[in-house]
């Protein structure tokens, strides 16, 4: 019996993996081309600036992977919408920004900046500058010691500022949940949007498999369950934007009466991807971009790796089940503490029809 269930779980997993592999293999050849005048960010600084917003994205992708109903072996189809919000910790409001190499050499240029009300006459490491959620940035003044190239390029620099965000709304999640007689839930999310000549695609597939009865922990108890869950997310846009995230974890649920479900869960998650854009280099030799950063001066492509601060989430919540659907409320402890609220609609068979 246990072997048969494991076989089915493996088949389900294999099917999910195949679908996603197809998605991974699907690639385009066109690059995003941006103006060479885009000199506000180097690749490294843009990566640091946006890292917290991708953390928000990762966390919101990896929410509502379980907890919406207790997998009890009844077939059910649910349409679920959830929204979330994250508290942004101070640590994610700043990052260590890139500084031109010449700024570290006193014989090339003398630098100064104001930090905490005091004038500092050297580069301060880490060079704390705001992320997209942060506040004001700190310019670094630079007086080149020679007026000729290459020293003369080491001029004063400034950085973009943050948006003063303390609480950030996550990406809303709209998904289809299928509960199968094998006491599992399969989740699907899909979104596609043509933008210019390319198509933006987002897809998620997830599995929440009840396992307590495999090991006969409570017998088959309709009011409590232990499950493992897994989800894989993929977003891409042509050859320029590519993002993958996954989560794997364990959760426990308890039902009280016919209405209320409480649950807790732990999950590990990761997030990665890249963004690449080339710059229009027409007239590069005639019209030199005057920047102390070689990447900007030479109009090199912007290449960013997506990263996230969050690796683990501890979740707890409750779900109120009604005749036609449910309401779900969840709190998550992660690098950005998160609150989420969702509702679901039973399509066809009603979940709490006994």
């Amino acid at each position, binding site marked *: 019996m246990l072997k048969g269930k494991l076989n089915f779980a493996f088949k389900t997993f294999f099917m999910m993996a195949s679908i996603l592999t197809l998605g991974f293999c699907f690639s385009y050849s066109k690059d995003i081309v941006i103006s060479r*005048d885009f000199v*506000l960010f180097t690749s490294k600084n843009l990566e640091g600036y946006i890292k917290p917003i991708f953390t928000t994205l990762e966390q919101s992708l990896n929410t509502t992977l379980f907890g919406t109903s207790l997998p009890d072996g009844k077939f059910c189809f649910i349409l679920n919408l959830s*929204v*979330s*919000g994250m508290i942004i910790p101070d640590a994610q409001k700043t990052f260590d920004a890139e500084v031109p190499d010449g700024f570290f050499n006193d014989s090339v240029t*003398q*630098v*100064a*900046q*104001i930090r905490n009300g005091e*004038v500092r*006459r050297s580069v301060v490491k880490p060079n704390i500058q705001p992320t997209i959620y942060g506040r*004001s*940035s700190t*310019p670094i*003044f*630079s*007086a*080149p*010691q020679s*007026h000729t190239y290459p020293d003369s390029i080491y*001029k*004063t*620099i*400034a*950085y*973009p*500022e*943050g*948006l*003063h*965000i303390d*609480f*950030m*709304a996550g990406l809303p999640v709209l998904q289809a949940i299928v509960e199968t007689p094998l006491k599992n839930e399969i989740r699907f999310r899909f979104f596609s949007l043509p933008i210019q000549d390319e198509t933006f695609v987002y897809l998620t597939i997830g599995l929440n498999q009840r396992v307590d009865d495999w090991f006969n922990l409570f017998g088959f108890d309709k009011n409590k369950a232990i499950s493992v869950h897994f989800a894989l997310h993929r977003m891409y846009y042509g050859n320029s934007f590519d993002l993958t995230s996954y989560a794997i974890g364990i959760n426990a649920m308890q039902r009280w009466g016919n*209405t209320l479900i409480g649950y807790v869960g732990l999950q590990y998650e990761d997030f990665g991807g890249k963004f690449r854009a080339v710059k229009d280099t027409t007239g590069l030799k005639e019209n030199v971009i005057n920047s102390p950063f070689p990447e900007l001066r030479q109009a090199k492509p912007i290449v960013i790796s997506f990263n996230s601060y969050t690796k683990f989430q501890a979740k707890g919540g409750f779900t*109120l089940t*009604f*005749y036609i659907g449910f*309401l779900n*409320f969840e709190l998550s402890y992660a690098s950005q503490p998160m*609150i989420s*609220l969702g509702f679901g609609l039973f399509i066809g068979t009603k979940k709490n029809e006994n």
Partner: protein
Amino acid sequence: MKISRTKFAVVVFMSLLLTSCYTDVINSFQNFRFQIPFYFYLNYIDKSIPDTSRIFVNLNNYDEFLKHRDELASAEIVQFNYWVDSLVFSNNVAFDPERDSLIIENVRFVLIFARPKSGIVNPKDSSDFEEDTTLPRFVLGEFYNLDIRDFYRQPHHIKIISNEISQVLTEVVRSRPYFYLSSEYGKVLGQTTTKKYFSLVNVRIDIVIRFTISL
């Protein structure tokens, strides 16, 4: 199925809270703020002091300003910096910070807003502008007993600009992004002649301006 009032209130409260969060976030993302340094090179030949001189600044000549001018919500001067890049005495000997001592009693930098002269619809160069006397002048930086050694290719004399100036700039800059930077030099310490001459003076002023643009 009956929902208790408490449960209903919790759900309504959470819905409102999250809705307002989305609204706040959308509002936050409607503006983008960044700082841009503007570099001003004041190069004088046969400069004499005491003296007052001014340069004309038209932000329309700066690509970074032009790119964002139409979406500009505000512009604030954040910091101001002044240093001496080169100085040659009247005997054509270059100033050497290791050897020479030169102290100027006072130096002052003043921001003066400009406007096109009456009747000029499409002003082209500085001769088409005049001081805007309807707006106050603002002192950006003032230094007393300014020791040139301490300002010679040294950028650590940073002045933080007051909100008062920034607010005026915000109001003016979208429609009239023109101003003068006036430099007022006093006597050299111990100067006995009416004027002291220098063959060459190169001065740098860097001004960092914070722009907020509406997306």
